């Protein structure tokens, strides 16, 4: 362990020194330990990554150091920040340090800013509190910072409100606010998890840039090893609140010592360089044929008499889904991929174009034909908890499609089908009488898959079906889908924003951006030799768990930027 020996010089350069930190919570009489005897150190200008799955205690570690634990939380041990012990510090003293020498940005930019007061008000408030500056001075400094984080039009934005900004822009504002007081330490708790991957790239680059420019130390909390590889100098790996491994980035990624580290690396690499099962076959009779599909949503009108604007959710898209293949649809938020799925499912009416499924025009169906059609196209949605009716038992949920599509089916047969499919998705019969709130996310998703497949549809649509799951659960569900694909020869339309998942599961892939089809082709070809610039950018911005590779990409990006100055 390279960092345990403290020389006199190192001790002086310590920004943060944590020893034996333990955090516990009292819930309903029980004590839950979130962090268990953690020790680590942070030097000047260092970027430390704290990585682990959800429940590993990474957030609680920093929250306890900042004194932001919930009222039922207790922290023990020591956390010394610039020669001051943070744990047990009274509120008044904490407020001198928080937001001043130590700043924090959070995961959810959408709700982390107050929508009722202007951006400027919030930023100036920080300066008023810590630097006692006057309004005019403070305002200038704020504009300066907003400019430093490359927010376009800072003089205008400062008098605007947070809901006028996108997620990426809000996160920039948060970073700018954190920088106002020139802190020594910036804590970023999953700062880019809620952002699109191209936006994530820019924000991470920004964090590195300001670290350089303002000479800060950074603690970056994340579950994504690629992000760690891209940004961090040293890494702390946590599992269930306990330190698994702690070392510099090359050691962690190229010669990991702890088993958990190896496990995490394996899981993330597994997705990046997985082999997609290529199908070499001539194009059979396509199952679903989408031609010139367009969906326009009216945008709320400005005034009574202005022209009606439209949001082009899907713009003149044509694509085919072949029998037996898994077609992936990739895109960032706002690309229109979910709208596309809803059109195919007949949950959304298109403004233009045709969809023909199994040789029938879906838009011209009557009620009876629609029902028949629905039997053959089923869907698994993103949120496992809200896709099951909380008032129905698992058995009832699985029985629904049978009752609707096979009303004459005898009880014996339906019971058998239900038991069969429950088994297929890896759940035992004990789950039948339970309600969704008793199940975990992964289990709910399995039920959703069983419900979708129980009527033996010809096409299964997965709309971000694994996006809301933990990494390890996600891997399990993907395995399940692959198994079902093999055994049942499923045709699937797989929608995702996570390229690694698409890589693993899909034969062909379609890239969407702002409603338009950018590129399509075999997965392997698209991912390894993309043609379109947007696809290239998209693929590039996905962080890979390989520090050397990431460093190359970073330098390349800097070089590109330098070209413009």
């Amino acid at each position: 362990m390279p960092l345990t020996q403290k020389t006199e010089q190192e001790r002086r350069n310590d920004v943060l020194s944590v020893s034996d930190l333990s955090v516990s919570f009292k819930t309903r009489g029980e004590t839950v330990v979130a962090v268990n005897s953690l020790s680590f150190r942070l030097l000047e200008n260092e970027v430390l990554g704290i990585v682990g799955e959800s429940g590993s205690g990474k957030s609680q570690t920093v929250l306890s150091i900042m004194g932001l634990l919930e009222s039922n939380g207790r922290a023990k041990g020591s956390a010394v920040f610039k020669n001051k012990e943070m744990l047990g510090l009274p509120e008044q003293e904490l407020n001198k340090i928080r937001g001043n020498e130590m700043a924090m940005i959070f995961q959810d930019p959408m709700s982390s800013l107050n929508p009722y007061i202007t951006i400027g008000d919030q930023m100036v408030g920080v300066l008023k509190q810590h630097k006692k500056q006057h309004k005019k001075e403070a305002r200038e400094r704020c504009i300066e910072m907003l400019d430093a984080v490359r927010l376009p039009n800072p003089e205008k934005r400062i008098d605007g409100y947070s809901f006028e900004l996108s997620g990426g822009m809000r996160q920039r504002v948060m970073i700018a606010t954190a920088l106002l007081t020139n802190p020594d330490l910036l804590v970023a708790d999953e700062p880019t998890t809620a952002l699109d991957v191209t936006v994530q790239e820019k924000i991470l680059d920004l964090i590195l840039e300001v670290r350089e420019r303002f000479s800060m130390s950074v603690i970056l909390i994340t579950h994504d090893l690629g992000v760690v590889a891209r940004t961090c100098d040293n890494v702390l790996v946590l599992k269930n609140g306990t330190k698994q491994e702690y070392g510099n980035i090359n050691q962690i990624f190229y010669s990991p010592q702890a088993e958990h580290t190896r496990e995490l690396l394996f899981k993330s690499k597994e997705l990046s360089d997985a082999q997609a099962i290529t199908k070499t076959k001539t194009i059979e009779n396509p199952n679903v044929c989408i031609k010139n599909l367009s969906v326009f949503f009216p945008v709320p009108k400005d005034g009574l008499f202005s022209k009606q604007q439209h949001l082009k959710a899907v713009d003149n898209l044509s694509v085919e889904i072949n029998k037996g293949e898994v077609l992936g649809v990739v895109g960032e938020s706002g690309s229109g991929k979910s709208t596309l799925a809803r059109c195919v499912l007949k949950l959304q009416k298109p403004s233009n174009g045709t969809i023909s499924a199994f040789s029938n025009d879906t838009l011209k169906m009557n009620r009876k034909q629609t029902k028949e059609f629905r039997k053959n196209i089923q869907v698994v949605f993103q949120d496992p908890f809200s896709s099951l009716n909380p008032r129905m038992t698992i058995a009832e949920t699985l029985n629904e499609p049978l009752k609707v599509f096979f009303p004459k089916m005898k009880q014996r047969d339906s019971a058998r089908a239900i038991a069969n499919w429950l088994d297929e998705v890896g759940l035992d019969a004990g789950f039948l009488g339970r309600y969704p709130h008793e199940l975990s996310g992964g289990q709910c998703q399995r039920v959703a898959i069983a419900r979708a497949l129980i009527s033996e549809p010809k096409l299964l649509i997965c709309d971000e079906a694994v996006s809301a799951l933990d990494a390890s659960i996600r891997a399990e569900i993907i395995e399940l889908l692959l198994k079902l694909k093999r055994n049942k020869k499923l045709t699937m339309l797989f929608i995702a924003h996570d390229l690694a998942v698409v890589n693993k599961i899909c034969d062909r892939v379609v890239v969407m951006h702002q409603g338009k089809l950018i590129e399509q082709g075999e997965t392997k070809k698209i991912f390894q030799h993309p043609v379109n610039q947007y696809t290239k950018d998209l693929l590039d911005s996905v962080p890979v768990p390989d520090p050397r590779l990431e460093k190359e990409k970073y330098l390349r990006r800097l070089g590109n930027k330098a070209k413009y100055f």
Partner: protein
Amino acid sequence: MTTKVTTHTNSLLGDAWNTLKKNRAALVSVTTMATMIALVIFGPLLSPYAVDQTDWYQISSRPNLASGHIFGTDDLGRDLFVRVMYGGRVSLMVGIVATIVSVIIGVTYGSISGFIGGKTDALMMRVVDVLYAMPFLFFVILLMVFFGRSILLIFVAIGAVNWLDIARIVRGQTLNLKGKEFVDAARAGGASTLRIVFKHIVPNLLGLVVVYVALTVPQVILVESFLSFLGLGVQEPMTSWGALVNQGARQMETSPWMLLFPAMFLATTLFCFNFIGDGLRDALDPKDRTREEE
């Protein structure tokens, strides 16, 4: 992110009951209400006096265990205890019936508005907004003045006053449910609109409806008491707590017990229902569902 869930009892209702049991105020309220309902039904059997039996030798007499007038008598010599019990029957009955009327109107209106959505919903809600601010009670009184004071009219009119709150809440919840993925899944699963409404939406509304039934009962009793107090409610020989408070208020300098007993019963009932309603609301609030977070 998925999280592990600690296993509770089987159904949501069982869940709710468990949480409610832990709320001491609600529990006490339930017991109190149960006792009161029993009293109101069986109480008069315990007393030797009838509800309209006037006793000119015992006008406005104090509560006196020996004479059997445990609550005293009113200015016409009638036993107050029996009258309070009879008044309770009327008040509680109006409370329950009018609440049912309110709930039926409110749930129907709210769920239809929420389910249809779009412009119809906007219009229907605008109507609710407008009515919400009206002194509805005044209209009720107006109706009574114009059309007479039948007990049926009282039930319906009072019920019509309180449906707005329920309609709003039900509509909000319906919209919420409509956006949930299991409704989409049901549609994609070929379910007819009717099936979706009755199998998927309505069962998920029930929890909310129960809460608002508990919260509406006291409001309705209040309205009835208000009307009776003004002399516009039930007519003699029927009496209600509101009417009794009215009579008691007029005599309070000389016979304060005439005011205090019915007032006490009325206030206690309202208290209890409010506690129960609050407790139920906390119990069924989905935000409170326990999931261990990171």
